[in-house]
């Protein structure tokens, strides 16, 4: 982990409110692993004051670039959306504990909304390792659904799901995934990221499914490096309930260890 001033190579609005940011910083491009995040100083003023965490959505070690995907939802992401090519962005990273892939195929990625970001990185990395990968990607409607096939090499089987049916399968992500299981999909391992209520449903349903499931959690953060304990979440381990830090032990946790 280092503090660096990454060069903004490209900022692209891929659909209203959604941005794809390419940062050049060879160290980060080499070091970042799927599931880890960067902690960005979005403002040099006092508001917003704290850094903002963003999961790494991909890397290109050859080009020395790191990719981030974000949705413009507030003061921090407003500022990010105004970055210009050639700007420098103060980054701490890569931070956090990455996903662990245990080797069972197919790997199934379950993404809700902008939670797709770390799963794009994971999917691409598993695909490059010759693994079979499915992505179930759900959002409210077509406007909130990104054309993620653009960011993945051919080979990942993408299942789009929207609640209003405007793109892909109609319904909610857990039900769509259930239908795929009913049709005979037999996952090796599951990886999920998205809003906490969605992750809680997936964790509960997985009580029936019984697959290894890792989730990437989000929590308000101050230091990002494990010092302040501000981002702690309740975790159950060896029969004991303890607080673990999203920024350090997380953001990736085994779903059965999270107290939902």
């Amino acid at each position, binding site marked *: 982990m*280092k503090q660096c001033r990454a060069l903004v190579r490209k900022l692209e609005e891929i659909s209203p409110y959604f941005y794809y940011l390419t940062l050049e910083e060879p160290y980060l491009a080499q070091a970042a692993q799927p599931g880890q995040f960067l902690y960005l100083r979005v403002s040099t003023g006092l508001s917003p*004051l704290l850094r903002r965490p963003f999961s790494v959505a991909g890397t290109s070690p050859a080009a020395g670039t790191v990719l981030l995907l974000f949705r413009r939802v507030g003061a921090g992401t407003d500022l990010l959306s105004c970055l210009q090519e050639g700007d420098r962005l103060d980054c701490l990273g890569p931070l956090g504990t990455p996903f662990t892939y245990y080797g069972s195929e197919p790997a199934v990625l379950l993404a809700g909304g902008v939670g797709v970001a770390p799963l794009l990185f994971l999917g691409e990395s598993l695909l490059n390792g010759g693994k079979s990968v499915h992505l179930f990607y759900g959002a409210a409607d077509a406007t909130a659904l990104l054309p993620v096939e653009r960011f993945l090499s051919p080979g990942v089987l993408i299942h789009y799901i929207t609640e209003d049916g405007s793109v892909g399968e109609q319904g909610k992500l857990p039900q769509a995934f259930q239908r795929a299981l009913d049709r005979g999909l037999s996952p090796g391992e599951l990886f999920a990221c998205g809003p906490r209520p969605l992750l809680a449903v997936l964790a509960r349903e997985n009580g029936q499914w019984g697959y290894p499931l890792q989730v990437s959690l989000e*929590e308000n953060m101050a230091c990002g*490096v494990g010092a*302040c*304990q*501000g981002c*702690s979440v309740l975790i159950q381990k060896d029969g004991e309930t303890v607080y673990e830090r999203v920024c350090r032990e997380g953001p990736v946790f085994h779903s059965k260890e999270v107290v939902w």
Partner: protein
Amino acid sequence: MPSLKTRIASLALETPLLTASGTFGFGDEYASLMRLEGLGGLVVKTLTLKPRSGNPPPRLVETPAGMLNAIGLQNPGLKHFLKAELPHLQNRNIPLIISIAGDTEEEYVALAEALDRQTGIAALELNLSCPNVKKGGILFGTDVVILESLVSKVRSVWNKPLIAKLTPNVTAVADLARAAATGGADILSAINTLRGMVIDVATGRPLLGNRFGGLSGPAVRPVAVKMIYEIFEATKLPLIGMGGIMNTDDALQFIMAGATAVAVGTANFVEPQTIPQIAAGLNDYLEKAGLESLHELVGVAHD
């Protein structure tokens, strides 16, 4: 050549820049980002006798030019600290200040006694923003009688410099400062966080798991500077000022108000290099002003 070397009570510091308790963990979290040896002193996160699991999340939320936190003093407790943290802290060539808290006077005293037997600890800081469970939950730092009694009891078992960290959540901080001085404190530090809350309008409920939290960051700085100014006039004890220090000028405000040393807290989260940057800035300031030492500036804001 100007020097940032600072003497506060019997503590000799290379620079007057400390970390504020709770913002720097036990130091190792920041070791890969900065040279810890560049700190004037490391104030570790508050230690309690028994481990504390802390408050339910969410534990923090950003506020205008600040943040509100309710961590709940999560820490591994004395036994684990002595075994797992103190050895690596002792090996760093940096003055180590241990912040302690308890639910009762006895807990503070037990901690102070145990730490007094250890080597490599430069000073103890009493976190007084804790409820005294034997006195109906009144915070130790908000009642002059309770505060003086606690400080004097810890004083009787702790032989090195003793710092009392005052809370701003009182009517007259000067009275509490005098009580801490009478109790036997060597140094006063101020301020701890200001109590506050944020309500989540989407749910109509308090946003923090603990409902209330402590406000820190630049938003509190004018309050903190004024309290240092008042405390400076109320006692002769040397002061450590803190509250929203982000840069050199902020640090200078506290020094001019009466602080001999300052602590940086929230700014560490934003910019881990804040302390070394302020050290460089203070050095430049002294050179330009033709001063030898910051001691010449302490309290110059007073008539």
